[in-house]
């Protein structure tokens, strides 16, 4: 199966702090892959390296065969990144924001408008898209961001804590949306989350990350069985030695 993400011996150091300490993993195309780990485990740093925002100290990272350092411009055409606290331009309307972001990916007006129409559908914000994004609630802002990330049908969607800060209803709707949309359009999704239940329900495969290292990789059900717990959370705690 073709690989959407290939990571080998990835290390990232900030000053004297090692945030990522030799991560290696592979994500197949079309998979929904979850990174699970506590705060400071290196999840966001790994996602930022894959998204070409920061560069690795050492190691190799490729997206659909393209190196994220040497071929960063090509990688950016394949990916869409949703940061944990992503915001929109406060003085643009939701619609203007979607159109602006779509225009970076497509040349023709027709393609842009098709993507925007998709964004309008995904966001489900209706007429509120004509208002400035500064007037949106947190849930609306997150839906706008998710619509922005998915409307361009990237080969790889990188979603950092996609339901962060949302209430149960909104989080449920977003999870459903991501899963369905990715399946329908064969988009590979790499997401990070603290929420084990979320990852267990959404992901085809997961990686446990602790202290900058991948400590286990597998299908959620298999990991739960392997470590003899009832939930992925229990499996994770056993793997990292807290249970």
């Amino acid at each position, binding site marked *: 199966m073709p690989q959407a993400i290939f990571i080998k011996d990835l290390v990232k150091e900030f000053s004297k702090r090692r945030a990522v300490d030799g991560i290696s993993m592979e994500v197949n195309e079309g998979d929904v892959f979850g990174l699970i780990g506590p705060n400071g485990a290196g999840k966001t740093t790994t996602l930022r390296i894959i998204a070409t*925002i920061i560069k690795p100290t050492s190691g190799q990272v490729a997206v659909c065969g393209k190196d994220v350092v040497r071929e960063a411009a090509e990688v950016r055409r394949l990916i869409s990144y949703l940061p944990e606290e992503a915001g929109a331009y406060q003085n643009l309307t939701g619609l203007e924001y979607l159109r602006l972001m779509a225009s970076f990916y497509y*040349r023709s007006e027709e393609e842009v408008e098709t993507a925007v129409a998709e964004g309008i559908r995904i966001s489900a914000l209706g007429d509120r898209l004509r208002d400035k994004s500064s007037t949106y609630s947190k849930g609306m802002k997150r839906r706008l961001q998710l619509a922005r990330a998915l409307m361009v049908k990237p080969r790889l969607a990188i979603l950092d804590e996609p339901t962060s800060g949302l209430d149960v209803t909104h989080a449920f709707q977003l999870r459903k949306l991501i899963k369905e949309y990715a399946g329908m359009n064969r988009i590979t999704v790499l997401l990070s989350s603290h929420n084990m239940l979320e990852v267990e329900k959404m992901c085809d495969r997961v990686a446990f990350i602790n202290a900058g290292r991948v400590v286990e990789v597998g299908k959620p059900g298999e990991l739960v069985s392997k470590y003899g717990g009832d939930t992925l959370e229990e499996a994770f705690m056993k793997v990292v030695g807290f249970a």
Partner: protein
Amino acid sequence: MPSGLRLLVIKEIKDLLRDPKILVGIIIFPALLLPLMGAAISVSTGSTIEKAYGNLSIYVVDEDNGSISQALLDYFGANNVEVNKISGPPESSLGVLSGGDVLLCIPAGFTSNITGGNWSGVVIYVNFKDFSMVEFIKSGRVDQIINSFRSELVRRLVSEEAPDRDPNALLNPIRQDYKSVIKGEAFRISPAVLQGTVQMQTLMGPIVIMLVLILAMQIAATSIAIEKEAKTLETLLTVPVSRMSILFGKLAGSVTVALLATVANVFAFTYYIGAVLGSAGAGAGDLGQAGLKLAPAPEGYLILGLSIFGALISALAIALTLGTLAQDVRGAQSIIGIVIVPVFLPAIFMMMGDISALPPAMQAVLYLIPFTYPALASQALITGNYGMSLIGLVYMACFTLAMLYIAAKIFSSERIMTARISFRARKAD
């Protein structure tokens, strides 16, 4: 223009101009505030002058009652001043005076002393209550009238003593006739009048340039800080658009908004100056012709334009680079608050005097600051001394390229996300 850059420029301008803080604080507020201030000063000054000149009346204790004292009082009357004669010692009448009232005391023997060839004095009491402009203007007006009367009296006395001589020639045997030499040509104009004309131009140039640079730096640093604070930068760095487009988009957006703000500010400032000073009357002597001689040559405008452009780009590159170090808008403003010092320093020195008159070390410091050269170029418009401005253009081109290189390096690296400078005390871990 590449499509990514075009999109970013449009986005920047739209986002900046829709920001109430920028639209109101930098464009609309100064554009309205300065004319309002000018109108307020103009109205207030007008009414003050009207009040001071309108109904002036003075109190007079005339202990002389002679022909010259009477002529003086008649002279006051002829100048629309109401004369109220009172008697008794002047000190006993001070209680009746209101704010700005003047009591003129003409001593006994005033007329006989003058006609006898001696001097004689008058005492002027001015009563101050509010120390307002009206009170000062009133006393000044009385002084003017007495001076004017004295001149006429002196002429009359001289005419009586030497009827066959011109009293003006006797009183002013030496007349100064100034010729100001500009670019090798002499004009009948006094240096004082010339100074007033030239100073306005030499002052306005550095002020306007300083204003543009500071505004542009604030806008640029704030725009990158807003991207960080609103968490839009992280997303922008992952879309298929080059980092150089992001940098130049911010430069172009900031320049456009800064220029709009400058146009608004310059119009407002011009109106303010006009309202405060009133329209300048026709210049004395050959001011018009001298003005033509002082008119800048086209190459002067070209050098000034290039200097301002270079300074603007380097200022923006510095601001954007420093803006990446700030974690939020407040941090960006703090950083810019520090770096605008070298921007207004040259302008202040230019306004106060001549750089060449400064100690060599100070001159060297000013010549190292690239923002000195647009101010020099604006002065060179009048003086025609383009030498230093041309050297400055080469220096600024190098400085600007260096600044752009640093900004480009930061924008194309992860430092745009990871660089930090904080003005807050570090929290204990």
